[in-house]
């Protein structure tokens, strides 16, 4: 212990740090957010979220009796994207679709053979519009199977194929593995945002609400010192949680890690600066835990989820939304973290992003100091 007689400032600081650490260790909700939540998120991203659809239960109505029609029907039946559980007239299949026994009906219409001979030939896909994602996947895949079949048929006859290449590319890609490789490292960004912004958004507000800050302000502690004792423990918590996620990512989900541990640590540390700054700013300005947590969810968690390029590609967003992503700190973290995992250290990419994140941090902490005055009203 440091004796306040000789080093009053240091003794104050040590006392506040140990108080904060004890509070973190004694508060089960901190553990929930710092350890249980990241694990759940990682498992969800690693196993639960799949951006590709696998085998879909469908019904098939073959209304044409040509050889082409039955050949295509065979192609659907053997496709690994479809599980043809029922065949028969459209009328009957419709009931199965309504009762949710099947997700879609593939109709090979009358005169299909004649159309194919004439260079056309289309299938109809009837899907449940209340499940728009499934509907569009099934429609795309049904068309894909048909196109593959057509190309195969053409090459069998020695004719030049005219396949729709953009559709085919989908199946050569291994979507399951790839989505995990970018989703799992990406979720580390979410975890650090939760700890940096959501947890810290509560801590200063909690001291306001419980009246403890009022008692603290009557002691010699400086407001800058006070904020610092809030930042350091949560910074440590963020790093520990990040390390836990990284280990899970590598050893449980088999995500490759091609960069250096040092680079990962530095990237995470730099990102925590604006994240903590944002949380503290919300907390000091609002002084109310409930409002602070709402604001933290809206301004930190949701943008990180939606606007950072973590799940949705920024390049494919509308221009005004793209412009908005520039003020989302996580936007500068996601490329770094994905790169350090999948590609390796690339300091040419890391350093500019880090500089931007530090600039965000400086602004946020500056505002924070302005808001935390030693005054009650």
């Amino acid at each position, binding site marked *: 212990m440091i004796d306040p007689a000789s080093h009053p400032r240091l003794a104050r600081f040590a006392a506040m740090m140990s108080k904060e650490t004890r509070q973190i260790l004694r508060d089960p909700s901190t553990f929930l957010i710092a350890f249980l939540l990241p694990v759940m998120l990682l498992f969800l991203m690693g196993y639960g979220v799949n951006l590709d659809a696998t085998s879909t239960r469908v019904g098939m109505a073959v209304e044409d009796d040509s050889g082409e029609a039955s050949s295509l029907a065979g192609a659907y039946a053997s496709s690994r994207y479809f599980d043809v559980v029922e065949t028969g007239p459209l009328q009957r299949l419709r009931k199965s679709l309504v009762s949710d026994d099947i997700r879609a009906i593939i109709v090979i219409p009358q005169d299909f053979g004649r159309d194919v001979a004439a260079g056309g030939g289309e299938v109809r896909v009837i899907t449940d519009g209340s499940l728009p994602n499934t509907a569009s996947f099934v429609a795309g895949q049904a068309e894909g199977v048909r196109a593959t079949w057509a190309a195969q048929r053409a090459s069998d006859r020695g004719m030049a194929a005219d396949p729709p290449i953009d559709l085919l590319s989908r199946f050569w890609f291994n979507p399951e593995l790839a989505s995990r490789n970018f989703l799992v490292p990406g979720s580390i960004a979410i975890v650090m945002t939760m700890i940096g912004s959501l947890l810290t958004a509560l801590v200063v507000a909690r001291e306001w609400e419980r009246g403890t800050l009022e008692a603290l302000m009557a002691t010699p502690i400086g407001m800058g010192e006070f904020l610092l004792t809030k930042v350091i423990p949560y910074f440590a918590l963020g790093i520990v949680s990040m390390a836990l996620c990284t280990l899970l990512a590598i050893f449980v989900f088999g995500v490759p890690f091609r960069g250096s541990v040092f680079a990962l640590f530095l990237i995470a540390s730099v990102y925590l600066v604006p994240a903590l700054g944002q949380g503290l700013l919300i907390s000091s300005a609002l002084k109310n835990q409930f409002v602070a947590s709402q604001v933290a969810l809206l301004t930190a968690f949701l943008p990180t989820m939606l606007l950072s390029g973590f799940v949705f590609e920024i390049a494919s967003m509308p221009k005004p939304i793209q412009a908005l992503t520039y003020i989302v700190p996580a936007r500068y973290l996601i490329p770094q973290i994905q790169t350090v995992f999948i590609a390796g250290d690339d300091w040419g990419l890391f350093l500019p992003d880090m500089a931007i994140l530090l600039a965000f941090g400086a602004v946020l902490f500056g505002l924070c100091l302005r808001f935390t005055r030693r*005054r009650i*009203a």
Partner: protein
Amino acid sequence: MTEPVALAPVASAKGLTKRFDGLDRPALDDVAITIAPGEMTGLVGPDGAGKTTLIRILAGLIDPDAGEATVGGRPATVQDRNALGYMPQRFGLYEDLTVRENLDLYADLRALPHDERADRFATLLDFTDLDRFQARLAGKLSGGMKQKLGLACALTREPRLLLLDEPGVGVDPVSRRELWAMVSQLAGEGIGILWSTAYLDEAEKCDTVFLLNEGKILASGEPDELTGQMDGRVVRYPVASDRRRVLREALDEDSVIDGMVQGDSIRLLLKDGADAPPASAIDASGEPRQARPRYEDAFVDLLGGGPGGTSALAARYPEVPASDKPAIEAHGLTRRFGDFTAAHDIRFSVGRGQVFGLLGPNGAGKSTTFKMLCGLLTPSEGTGTVNGFDLRTARADARQSLGYMAQKFSLYADLSVRQNLAFFAGAYGLDNSAAREAVESAIETFHLGPYLASDSGLLPLGYKQRLALACAVLHRPPVLFLDEPTSGVDPIVRREFWSHINGLVERGVSVLVTTHFMDEAEYCDEIALIYRGEQIATGSPDHLKEVAGTGDAPMEDAFIALIEQSDARREEMEAA
């Protein structure tokens, strides 16, 4: 030392003015105060008077709009904070740290050297009787113990100035007395102490008192000086029966500006220069005797006297028909929460036109009993009736026959006064014309006219309480449940409330009431004293004083004696 005795004040302020947004009058208006070393300075006034604002300015936590505050010769905002002890209203304890950890934290923050720590902590822990509880989490302490720990934390390093913001609020009289004894001992050591309180009886014990009301200092100086001005104006009449009615008649006399029931007599404050009315004029059973004035009398006098004795509410209230059934009955009401018994075997019966008081420290089980009788909480055992309706079988009928005023303001803060009245009239099932009539009558009775369009949450406290009572009686219930109706309001509003209660009781209404003011307990026909979930004594105020063996002393002494007897019995049983 050859210095003259007049010591420089440890803190002083003058011309302090502070306004807050959204309030129509300043929280503080040209306030001056001085706090001398070695003295107990009282800051006295009702809720909303500006006490907390003034204390925060002295602690350097609020900048005044005008005026200046000086502490230890420096502006308050840059004072030496190592020499400041400050206990905010909510104590400022970390509930997830232990007693010892809280002390250590504040000792480090105030730079108490390590070699002095053992002695200082030993003194503080002994002083607060918390030695055994060093390893307990602060959140697991009782209210009284939290308050003592709060004080210990404020004292980790001996301060020159100690600011205590309503240390007595929400704490039972036993803990209040203990705390007072501790703090006055500190004054003996030369510390300047500011003790703020809404209890006027605490003012009498201070060396100097500043009386604050609506942001202005009404009086300052030694309490006896002010109380002395009331000499000869306070009289007591013995009353054989029907004390409340006699009081009402006395209060309607021109010569009387305030009065209360006290034991088997009534106590009146006379207008300056007026003669005491003859006993026959007010139906008293004997001629008046002079009584010792109290600080509260001086406060009421400064405020221009209390309301008359006639209640406009009671005048409009229908007579409650006579009935052979008791109005409220509790048969062995027990409520457990897990292992914890919040209320155990509570039994009493309240007849038509009676006031029954539930008294006890915070957390004793008063509100639990209240909620069971309102049908808001199902008893684990036992049953109750309201107006003859069994709470198990006819809960809706029971509720319809009672008016309930909750402890905290429980109206819709963001509805206007009129909207709240209209809503509650609807909620009680009054039809349109009856509702309109009830609302208009409430507005007149409680003088709510000027505030009809204001948000209820922004009303001054006294008006909030008036509105809450107005809402509770819209449907003219024969039974009223009032949970601390007068907590925090100034004495005038308290008198007004009791004149309504007394008036209603004369109309046959039965009232169940809880209160922290022991003088108000005297209005009750019967009292049940609840402590640690047990009903430890029941009877009329005089009966309780007799059981407690405290004679003619104020109710508070009887209360403390009864609690101490109960503690002694329990310790004996635990030892056996």
